[in-house]
C-alpha cells in the first residue's frame, strides 16, 4: 500500500506537476556545455628558455592546451618541450605540474578550472637544438 502511494506521487510528478520536490535538472541547472573561446599563444622559445601567456577564465569549465606546432629554422620538429597550466606569480607562471609534450592536434593537457586568471607555461627542458617557434592553442570557457 505504501509502495502504491509512492508510485502515485511519482506518477503525478512525471506527468509534469510542479512542486514535487524533484525538478527537471534541465530547467534549473546551468548548462556545462557552454561556449568556448580559443586563444593562440605563439612565440619563440629560446633554447633552454621559458615563455608564458596569461588568460582569464570567466566561469567553471575545462581548459585544454594543445601544442599545435613547433619549428626550428622553419622545419617542423618532433622534439618534446614541457608545457603546463599555472597561475601568474611574480615575473613567471607558477605551475603545479608540467609535462613533456610533442606537437599534436588533440589537447595534450586538459584541466577543470574555476573562474580566475591562469597561464600556460612552455619550457625547453634541454631538448631544443636551437630557438624554436611554437604555437599553442588555449581552449577555455568563454
Amino acid at each position, binding site marked *: 500500500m505504501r509502495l502504491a502511494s509512492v508510485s502515485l506521487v511519482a506518477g503525478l510528478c512525471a506527468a509534469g506537476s510542479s512542486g514535487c520536490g524533484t525538478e527537471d535538472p534541465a530547467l534549473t541547472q546551468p548548462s556545462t556545455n557552454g561556449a568556448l573561446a580559443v586563444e593562440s599563444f605563439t612565440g619563440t622559445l629560446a633554447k633552454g628558455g621559458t615563455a608564458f601567456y*596569461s*588568460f582569464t577564465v570567466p566561469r567553471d569549465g575545462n581548459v585544454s592546451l594543445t601544442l599545435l606546432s613547433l619549428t626550428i629554422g622553419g622545419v617542423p620538429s618532433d622534439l618534446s618541450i614541457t608545457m603546463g597550466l599555472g597561475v601568474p606569480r*611574480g615575473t613567471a607562471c607558477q605551475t603545479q605540474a608540467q609535462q613533456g609534450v610533442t606537437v599534436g592536434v588533440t589537447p595534450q593537457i586538459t584541466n577543470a578550472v574555476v573562474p580566475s*586568471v591562469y597561464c600556460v607555461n612552455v619550457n625547453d627542458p634541454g631538448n631544443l637544438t636551437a630557438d624554436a617557434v611554437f604555437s599553442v592553442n588555449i581552449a577555455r570557457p568563454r
Partner: protein
Amino acid sequence: MNRMKKLLPVFLVACLAGAGCGDEPTPTEPGPIVVAFSEYFSDVIAPAGTKFYSFGLVQDGTVEVTLASLTAATGGAVVNATPTVGFGIPAGTGCGVSTTVNAAPALAAQITQTLTAGIYCVRVSGDGGITADTNFAVRITQGKLNLKSTASPVTFSSNLGPKGASTQTFAVAGGTSGTATVTLATVFPSTTIGFGVGLWRPDTAACSLTQVINSSGGGQLSLGVDQGIYCVRVFDLNTLTNFVNFSISINHP
C-alpha cells in the same frame, strides 16, 4: 521496545535542555582572517622596455602600489624620471593595464585600488625620462600591515669612513601615513657627504633609495610615507680621506 520507552523521556528532557538532539551547540565564530603584507618587485628597465609582476589578492581589499626607487643600473645614482606605472590583470604575454600613472619615485602610493580577490599585475615602462638601463623597486601592499612605528623623533650618530656607507631603518605603523623628515644634523669634521631616504627591502636587506642630497650638515629631506619600513642611508661621495662623525635625526608618523 520497552527499553526505548524507558529512554524516551530522558531524550526529551535532554532535548528541552538543548543538548545532543540534532541542533549543534552554537559554534564560536572564528574571527575574520585578515591578510596583509607587502611584496616587492624590482628589476632593471631598459628605455622603451616594459616589465610586469603578477600577484594574488586572496581577499577583497585595498592594494597600494608604490614606485619607490629608480637608480642607474650603472653607478647607482638616483634617476629623476617619471615612468609609466600600470595596474591591471595578466593577459597574453604581458599585463593588461586598466590604470596608469606617470610616477616619480615616492614612498607614498601612486596607485590605490579597491579590489575583489583575484590575480592582478603591475607594469613598469621604460619611458618618462628613462634614457638608460635603470633599476627600479615597486612595493605592493595589501591591507593594513601588522607593523608598529619605531620611536620618533630619533637621533642616530655614527662614523663614516672612506668609501663607506651607513644605513638606519625606521617603520611607519600599519594604517598610518604622513610625512617623514630626515635631517643630516652634523658632520664632523665638516665635509660634504651624501644621504638619502628610501624603501627598506626586507627580502634583500637592501635600501632602495628614493631621494638623495649632499650636505655638510643641515640638509633635510621630507617625503610622504605610507605604512612600511624605510631606510636612511649616509654615504661617502668618494671624497673622504678620513673618518667623519655624523648625526641624523628622523621624524616620522
